[in-house]
């Protein structure tokens, strides 16, 4: 396969970090419009879309936990000291770039290539494409351009790896994060709190719900959006009008299933849906949508007699 575009990855990693002096040189080299200000950074990465693999791949939908440990284990497996936040997107891209020893032997270059592919398959592909889609949807100019560029660059890396091993038997398996994450819990058996937790864990529901999504749903349904963390806001939306909110969430899951499906195609995964993270997440989002639709119907039916 062609050499990895390490410099490009390293440069793109810069913009998952808070903006600071010196970023303008990197932005110019990447052809990005400008360096976003701190407010733009906070809006995207602090309030809407958290650039940590553990948030997207862990069963709790939160930073840290077993998902971060698994990422840290990968750092150790490739002989590197995990940093304080080993699953931060900047750290992962930096690591990908660093797994490109410039003057190593043929054997160690082959090992590094395997490590890069494992890093992509295990810890990046299962979340980063949907994440970047959502950045592009939510963010203006620079971050949108950055997301497109990073998505293209990562996609090229994935495709490059696939082409390099095209003739070999493919031993890929689905990312361990996704294999470990259960489906969206059915509140009829596990309680409504479990459902809310699952909805905020992309690995479980297949969709990535942001504050902006919740605000949009509240706006459309004319519901009050309580200020607070996503869980708090979502619980209060469900309390106000469960059937409508559940239906809206189901629609969002179906919409995001289509986003996964598109990545599946672009990555050439159609023939390998078992090991494909986008294919898996698409299926999961569809199942979540079905569950939510079923719950909406039941909630609606329960409300009907009272309405009479």
């Amino acid at each position, binding site marked *: 396969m062609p050499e990895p575009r390490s410099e*490009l990855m390293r440069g793109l990693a810069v913009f998952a970090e808070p903006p600071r002096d*010196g970023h303008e040189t*990197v932005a110019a080299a*990447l*052809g990005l419009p400008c360096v976003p200000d701190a407010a733009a950074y906070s809006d995207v990465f602090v309030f809407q879309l958290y650039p940590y693999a553990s948030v997207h791949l862990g069963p709790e939908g939160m930073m840290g936990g077993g998902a971060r440990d698994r990422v840290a284990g990968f750092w150790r497996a490739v002989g590197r000291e995990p940093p304080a936040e080993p699953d931060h997107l*900047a750290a992962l891209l930096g*690591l990908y770039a660093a797994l490109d020893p410039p003057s190593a032997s043929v054997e160690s270059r082959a090992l590094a290539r395997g490590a890069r592919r494992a890093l992509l398959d295990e810890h990046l592909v299962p979340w980063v494409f949907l994440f970047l889609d959502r950045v592009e949807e939510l963010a203006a100019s620079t971050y949108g351009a950055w997301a497109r560029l990073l998505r293209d660059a990562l996609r090229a890396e994935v495709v490059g790896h696939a082409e390099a091993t095209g003739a070999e038997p493919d031993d890929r398996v689905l990312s361990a994060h996704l294999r470990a994450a259960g489906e969206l819990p059915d509140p009829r058996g596990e309680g409504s709190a479990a459902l809310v937790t699952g909805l905020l864990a992309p690995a479980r529901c297949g969709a990535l719900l942001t504050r902006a999504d919740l605000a949009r749903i509240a706006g459309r349904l004319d519901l009050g959006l309580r200020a607070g963390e996503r869980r708090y806001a979502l619980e209060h939306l469900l309390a106000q009008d469960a059937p409508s909110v559940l239906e809206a969430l189901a629609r969002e899951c179906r919409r995001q299933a289509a986003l996964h499906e598109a990545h599946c195609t672009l990555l050439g995964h159609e023939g390998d849906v078992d090991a494909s993270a986008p294919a898996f997440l698409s299926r999961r989002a569809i199942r979540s949508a079905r569950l939510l639709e079923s719950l909406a119907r039941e909630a609606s039916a329960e409300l009907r007699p009272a309405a009479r």
Partner: protein
Amino acid sequence: MTLDDLERRVSAAREEAEARGETFYPGASRIHLAAYPPRERWNDWVELDSRSWPERVEKRYMLVPTTCFNCESACGLLAYVDRDSLQVRKFEGNPEHPGSRGRNCAKGPATINQITDPDRILFPLKRAGARGEGRWERVSWDEALDDIAARIRACLEEERHEQVMYHVGRPGEDGYTTRMLAAWGVDGHNSHTNVCSSGARAGYHWWMGMDRPSPDHANADVILLVSSHLETGHYFNPHAQRIIEGKENGAKLIVLDTRLSNTATHADFWLSPYPGSEPSIFLAIASWMIRERRYDRDFVRRWWNWQEYMEAVHDEPEAPFERFEEALGEAYASYTFDFAAGESGIDADELRAVAEVVASAGTRLATHNWRSAGAGNLGGWQVARTLTLLNALLGALATEGGTFPSAWNKFTPRPPHLPHQHPRRWNDVLWPDEYPLALMEMSFLMPHLMRDQDAFVDVYFTRVYNPVWTNPDGFSWIEMLTDERRIGQHVAMTPTWNETAYFADYVLPMGHSSERHDLTSYEQYDGQWIAFRQPVLRAARTRMGESVSDTREVNPGEVWEENEFWIELTWRIDPDGSLGIRRFFESVEQPGEKMTVDEYYRWIFEHSVPGLPEAAAAEGLAPLEYMRRYGAFEITRKVGRVYEQAIPDNELEDVRIDEVGRVYSAAEPPPSPRAPGGTKIDADSEGRRRVGVRIDGEIVRGWPTPTGKLEFWSRTVHDWGWPELAVPTYVKSHVHRQKLDSDQLPLITTFRVPVQIHTRSANAKWLDEIAHTNPLWIHPTDAARLGIARTGDLVRVETEIGHFVLKAWITEGIRPGVLACSHHMGRWKPEGHAGQRIGMMTVALDRDGSRWGLTRRKGGGPFTSSDPDTLRVWWTDVGVHQNLTHPVHPDPVSGAHCWHQAVRVLPAQPGDAFGDVSVDTARARAVYETWLELTRPASRHSPDGTRRPWWMLRPVRPERSAYELPDREAVGA
């Protein structure tokens, strides 16, 4: 543009930026310590001014590195110098420092409190009334220097060298003052070490010939701490970050700490032993490892001095190794887990489980003791000795993940003009006949030894040291310091007021970490580095094109640094060079002119630090410029097993190998950039120096001990009167249960809190706000039994010589039957004295013959000053000064003070008030005499007619002839 085009464009942009010496990815990846300003921007760093919020006002800083002075870790700091006002605004960590790697504890950033302290001493002061009366007048530096220099010159001219003494607390520069004292010909170096680490150091020294441990925590499989080392203690910040790394890599952490400290809460195994029983635990583990053959037999065979042991102890000079193993098993058979359980109060099964973990470490066992149990107990030096036994059994010494000896992980560069002479006279006050094996000076016995020897010290420097507060038996210190028949002139060199300075003749203001030069190097991982402490405003102004030749020009008031002070003082002692002293402080480049600190460090950095000139040249800098800009330099890492290194051929000439394998060579030692130091191993009878040892037919470097091997059995300890303690063994502490009355409890007094620094942090408001008091830790069962109802109740703690009154803290965080009270607190100033207001209470001192009382008149609290924060001080309780009530407990072998106290606790009595201290110094004297009876003096036990083993470490080494015991009774100083 394609992705490949973009890749090339970014790559080209990076190369272009790097060619300009800039960083292209400033903080891009969290792989590195990206939160720090990139170093090429240190000259002009822009931050938003927090005080201007919500306005976005940019502040421009010059970032100047220095080294923290608040504990011995010597962590790197970056001073943020405001480019507009040229004032230091804050301190952060220096990411270029190899030991601390940009991290700091709270004490580093709190330096800003210390340099802006409204009560700091800014000008030289001379007492105006009687000593201790509290009346001072400002004098010029010239007046003080001339007066002190004249006295010292008279001492030297009249052959009264021993009447000059320098007593150091916080170490400054490695070797600076010992070089100076050697130049003066004065055996007057006195340190605080015997109230600190010398117990542990002695244990290490007699094993390895080096006196400090350097555990490689980050790479260990098992970390065994006899301390609360994750939160406080020696090198704790550099060590703690590596302990956490080790844990993250899967290392098991075993902590021995009687208290539930924050360190204990991080442990996989927390052992809370009865105080002083720690060696019994290590011996039980060792015994089990020996029985079960869970040790590295080949390492023991190659590196222990077992043949010497078999010959001397078993009279079997030809015994094979297997016979030694048998004898070893027999020697330690009685140290069972049940025995250790009985001594320590820890379940035998838990000890067995710990033993299994220790043995599983192999060569990756990192162990550490510094103070803690080593400083608390009679025989405390056996803590380090028995702990090192575990490393020595596993071969976990100087291995990756093991414990290194200090000298191999430390680098002290050779200074210019190294004095060749040594003091000719022995100082009996510091190195008395009764303690020939004391690792360091018997500093804390000074009031008693001065009295015993009817001694007089004409010029006594206390330098960043506060023995009245820090040492046990502080009232005896006051009695000595106020007696002009004992102390002719007391010069307190201190950055801040302290209890000892009140009893000085001169108080000379010295700089904090950003106001002085020092060069330091400490053993904190398997590598060697140097760090540069520097007056940051001097460096900043120089960088802006100004010429600064005297640090007083940039420091606040007339605060000075020590190196310039000592150069100036030496020139005034010997203005015409007739004493032969001045030449060591003359310029190398311009003989006859005074050495400047710039030249001094320029010479060292250019001649004595391997790799530094090249690293500097790569950046287009001179070595001194490089150090002024970055503050630290790593010389090497991964030093490894020095003892296994082969001796190069050019060091082997006319070689002789003696019957025990020691290798002597007639070759001259190769030139070394390092300052001389360490143990002194005698040459053979024909003058060849020892270069190594022969092991299995190969000549290798070995250890700097008399045998060149690890000394499991110490001939030194054996021959100097302590044959029963020559191997690692168990000494029952003076607070052993069998030695206490039924109503007595052991009191642990040595532990520290993470945010305070002995006695020098009372002037740091941030630190004081976090921690300002020291209640008595007492278990609920003990509290109930003693009638102490609730936390906060006043209790009286009675020691052998008096009592103190404080508040109880009833907690399950302490072992039942044991009490604890922290160090640091209870700072005071006498009524009517100037002094520190924040962090100090005002007290009345009362004396009636030998009976002393200290009564709190006013606690802490708000006050008006130039700092508006002082009006916001919300606490009044600043603790109690317990050390005053501790008598001296000198260990008869190591000389270390044994801090733990046997006390009685009762509810406060009628008339007791918080903070009260009552002491009878006559009783203190009686306790001293009781402990003195335990000693085995050189005059009765020396095997060779000398005062002290020649090979052992000594900060300032007198001439060899001075080691000979006098024919008549020593007259002392």
